[in-house]
């Protein structure tokens, strides 16, 4: 039995068993939908790393030694923080926070900071304000003390006393709940809302992640809805039929439900990239059913009855859509080559979704389409060429007439646009990815501006031996390191145990101003550390390891991105190499370097998965098209859109962020669909007509329309992301729209020229019969 015969049998069987097919789809859908409520979301950073990653191990070790580096900072504008009424109100707020915020381990504000001071014959280690109900004049004097101390000025209080900060630090989060890190922000927000007489700005890692999660959760459905509505409108415009809209839309929605149900059934969790899965599936899953709908419509236009039309349609599209499913799934499975769990999971989920979309095309779309009105076949030529036919016909005639010029211009233009990729900046600062007006971004910028920075990088100085950090020689180098960091433009302040030792030294020397230096001997260091701790000093646990082998140096920074983190790390490495002995290990850690490492891993993973996808897809194309040369030429319109999209983003000045990093494989996945449909059909017509121009014309006449439609639908679908407050998804959708358009143009304009130039299928055997003619493009072949 030949292929057409097999498809006729398949069509016959599907139509005969169509009720059973639809019943099965209903049952599986119900089962999948019932699993959806049990889907778990895990957005914690830990989920990003596969086990054993050194960056993550460093962070774990840091937290084990010094506690959690997470903090939330509330900045409050007041008239004068040391006015008794204001101070009392601030104390009330701090009290509520201390009492109610979960996982809180320490709360620091000017009302409870420690104060180390030398007095004649003695040392006072106490709170700066021993009693909040002191008379106004005494409080004012304490205010002067606070603003004159570098440990507090611009950290917890501004020099003019009009801005104060409340710093909240957290315990190492317990292994309970979905993400305990997000427990505290809603409580903080609720408490702060009750103090609406205070002008507050809340910043910090947990807060920004919590806000991002909420915004994503709020926006996610909007993106999907807008994408769906846009796709439906485009389907309505291009297919001009109810079935043409509903069948592909319903197929792809069912694919999403089945895929998510499968994820839940397998007990997998959803991660931060999951928001992309439904949209990705909408894009790559809709292609299969759309090709069936569009091809069927095309065949029906030519006056064929439903059953033979369906058989002919499946004969035409089955091979390409099975192939596109394999190539697209291969593109996504290439994510398994990365070291990042969320990308691996995204790859596996999207690949499953693509296969499910194919299955549903046959189990759902074909049976439903078979119910559509079996209208009398229209006499040939009744429906003359429409706008799309004329456009495709004109394209073919232009390419056949001016192929060389078009090819050269296309390549030149592509190279020009792609050059813009060199201007791309990788930015992973999520705050900068938000609208400039968003309250969270405003709060971060305000804190950056008013109080020494909203972010921090941690440095661990590891002496390699117990009590090693009590060596004065090492502490002097740490002091120099802090001085070096404070000169760096990205760093606003630093802190370490060196500060406490200087305070102690000054206090022991009865507050002599020139004694704000390190002690003079190893013994003094040990004694002052002992005194500081037993005298009530609370910072030792945060800055010195249990066995005195490591020191933590904290560098506060303004809101910075990965490139900044990398620059700072390089600067630190340079300084360390020059100034520290080899046996002392100094490394950066904390949330920022971890995110920076994540960015690197994603970028590496992307290149690796892109390369893997390229190889797999190229091999599949070579085998399918039965020609190495044709397979390689077919890869050109696949790869070019990736560079065009990246280049266009570069020229537009967009920043490349995490969400954009999944762009290239997705473009490849979608573009390869166009390629497969185009080249499979092309090969078929070439075998039949043995002439490049004729094969091109026939390919465009039959598959051009569905390809044009799928591209229009995808471009409109992706416009859903324009309704976001994040720059990231907005730029992502722009890049995707450019990529899909350029993929189609590469297929329509460049591919025929390349085929003409390289003649991968051998020399032309037959004279062209129709390429230069201007007959109506929609003329049916009978």
């Amino acid at each position: 039995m030949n292929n057409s015969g097999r498809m006729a049998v398949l069509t016959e069987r599907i139509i005969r068993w169509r009720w059973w097919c639809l019943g099965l789809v209903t049952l599986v859908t119900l089962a999948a939908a019932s699993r959806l409520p049990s889907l778990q979301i895990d957005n914690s950073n830990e989920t990003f790393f596969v086990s054993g990653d050194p960056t993550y191990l460093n962070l774990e070790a840091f937290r084990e030694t010094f506690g959690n580096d997470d903090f939330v900072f509330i900045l409050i504008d007041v008239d004068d923080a040391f006015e008794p009424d204001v101070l009392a109100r601030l104390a009330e707020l701090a009290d509520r926070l201390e009492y109610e915020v979960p996982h809180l381990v320490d709360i620091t504000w000017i009302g409870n900071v420690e104060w180390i001071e030398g007095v004649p014959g003695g040392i006072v280690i106490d709170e700066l304000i021993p009693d909040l109900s002191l008379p106004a004049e005494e409080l004012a004097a304490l205010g002067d003390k606070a603003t004159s101390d570098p440990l507090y000025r611009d950290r917890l209080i501004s020099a003019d006393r009009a801005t104060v900060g409340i710093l909240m630090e957290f315990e190492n989060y317990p292994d309970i709940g979905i993400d305990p890190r997000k427990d505290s922000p809603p409580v903080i927000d609720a408490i702060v809302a009750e103090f609406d007489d205070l002008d507050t700005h809340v910043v910090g890692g947990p807060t920004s992640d919590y806000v991002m999660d909420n915004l994503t959760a709020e926006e996610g459905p909007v993106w999907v809805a807008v994408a769906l509505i846009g796709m439906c409108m485009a389907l309505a415009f291009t297919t001009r039929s109810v079935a043409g809209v509903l069948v592909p839309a319903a197929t792809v929605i069912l694919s999403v439900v089945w895929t998510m149900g499968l994820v839940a059934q397998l007990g997998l969790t959803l991660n931060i990239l999951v928001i992309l899965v439904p949209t990705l599936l909408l894009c790559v899953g809709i292609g299969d059913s759309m090709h069936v709908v569009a091809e069927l419509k095309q065949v029906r236009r030519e006056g064929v009855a439903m059953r033979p039309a369906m058989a002919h349609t499946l004969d035409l599209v089955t091979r390409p859509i099975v192939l596109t499913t394999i190539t697209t799934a291969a593109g996504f499975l290439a994510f398994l080559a990365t070291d990042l769990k969320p990308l691996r999971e995204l790859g596996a989920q999207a690949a499953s979704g693509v296969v499910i979309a194919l299955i549903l095309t046959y189990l759902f779309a074909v049976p439903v389409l078979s119910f559509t009105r079996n209208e009398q076949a229209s006499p040939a030529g009744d429906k003359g060429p429409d706008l799309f036919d004329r456009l495709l016909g004109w394209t073919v005639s232009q390419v056949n007439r001016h192929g060389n010029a078009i090819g050269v211009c296309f390549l030149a233009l592509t190279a020009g646009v792609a050059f813009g990729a060199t201007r791309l900046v990788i930015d992973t600062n999520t705050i900068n990815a938000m609208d400039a007006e968003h309250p969270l971004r405003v709060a971060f910028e305000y804190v950056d501006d008013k109080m020494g920075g909203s972010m921090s990088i941690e440095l661990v100085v590891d002496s390699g031996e117990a009590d090693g950090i009590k060596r004065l020689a090492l502490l002097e180098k740490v002091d120099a390191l802090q001085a070096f960091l404070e000169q760096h433009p990205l760093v606003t302040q630093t802190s370490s145990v060196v500060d406490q030792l200087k305070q102690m030294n000054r206090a022991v020397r009865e507050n002599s101003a020139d004694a704000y230096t390190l002690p003079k001997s190893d013994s003094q260091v040990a004694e002052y550390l002992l005194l500081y701790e037993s005298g009530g000093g609370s910072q030792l646990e945060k800055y010195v390891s249990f066995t005195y082998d490591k020191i933590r140096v904290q560098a506060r920074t303004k809101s910075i991105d990965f490139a900044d983190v990398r620059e700072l790390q390089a600067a630190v490495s340079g300084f360390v190499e020059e100034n520290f002995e080899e046996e002392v290990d100094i490394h950066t850690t904390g949330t920022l370097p971890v995110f920076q490492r994540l960015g690197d891993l994603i970028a590496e993973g992307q290149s690796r998965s892109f390369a893997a996808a390229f190889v797999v897809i190229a091999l599949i194309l070579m085998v399918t098209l039965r020609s190495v040369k044709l397979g390689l030429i077919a890869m050109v319109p696949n790869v070019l859109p990736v560079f065009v999209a990246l280049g266009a983003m570069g020229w537009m000045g967009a920043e490349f962020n995490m969400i954009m990093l999944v762009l290239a494989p997705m473009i490849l996945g979608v573009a390869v669909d166009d390629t497969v449909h185009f080249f499979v059909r092309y090969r078929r017509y070439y075998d039949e007509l043995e002439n490049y121009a004729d094969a091109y014309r026939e390919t465009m006449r039959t598959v051009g329309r569905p390809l044009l439609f799928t591209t229009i639908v995808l471009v409109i679908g992706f416009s859903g992301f324009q309704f976001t407050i994040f720059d990231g998804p907005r730029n992502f959708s722009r890049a995707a729209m450019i990529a899909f358009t350029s993929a189609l143009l590469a297929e329509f304009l460049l591919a025929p020229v390349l085929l003409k130039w390289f003649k991968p299928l051998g020399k032309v055997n037959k004279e062209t019969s129709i390429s230069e003619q201007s007959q109506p493009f929609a003329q049916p072949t009978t």
Partner: protein
Amino acid sequence: MKTVMMTTFLFLAEAAFGDSLSGRDIIARVDAVDSSLDGQRQATMAINRGNQRLVRQLAMKNKKFGEDERSLIRFIEPADVRDTQYLSWTYEATEQDDDMWVYFPSENLVRRISGGGKKGSFMRSDFANEDIERRAVDDDVHTFVEESTLNGRPVYIVESRPIPTKAKDSNYAKRKSWVDAEYWLPLQVEYFDRRDRLLKRLTQGGIEHIDGIWTATKLIMETPRRKSRTLMQYTDVRYNVGLTDSTFEQTALKR
């Protein structure tokens, strides 16, 4: 057998009069257990956190001055703080702040320390200074909770909350003590923060009758949140050894 019978009798007798024992009465009995005029001991602390361990050694002396008490701690290990000394005078009168001096041997320098010393950690152990110092009975309000048993021993459970003027000087909002009904020593103490979260747990054992005074010689303080544990072992405990008053003068620190 005789001891068991005596213990049972005492407990039953106390139980019979239990209603008349207030929380303060029980804590006052605890305070009165050490009836000595003075004493001295060696202390070794083994502090374990995860798989890391620190060892500290110190010599402690104390003497009563009427209702007040003075104590002197000299550090022996680690070597880098050897001979550093802390002298503290604690007063029974709640309105009077305690005094403390420190002696730095490397500079032969004495400094008076004032402020929040009580809350400070004791040599990175799980003990805070306030945990090892004598605490005046009326620094807290004591509430009798119930009679119970702990590890087979009859105990009184008492909750103690600092009086408002002392609350600021303490890490704890509440301490819950399991006081042995025979020895009048706490067998277990739990420490809670303002949110009623358990901060630490002290277990006392190795109870010996030394120079006529019941003494716990083995103290284990655990901080569950930090996964940390400190064992304090007292050795060479002696009471009424005739320490001079001048031993507890700040001028004596330099000697």
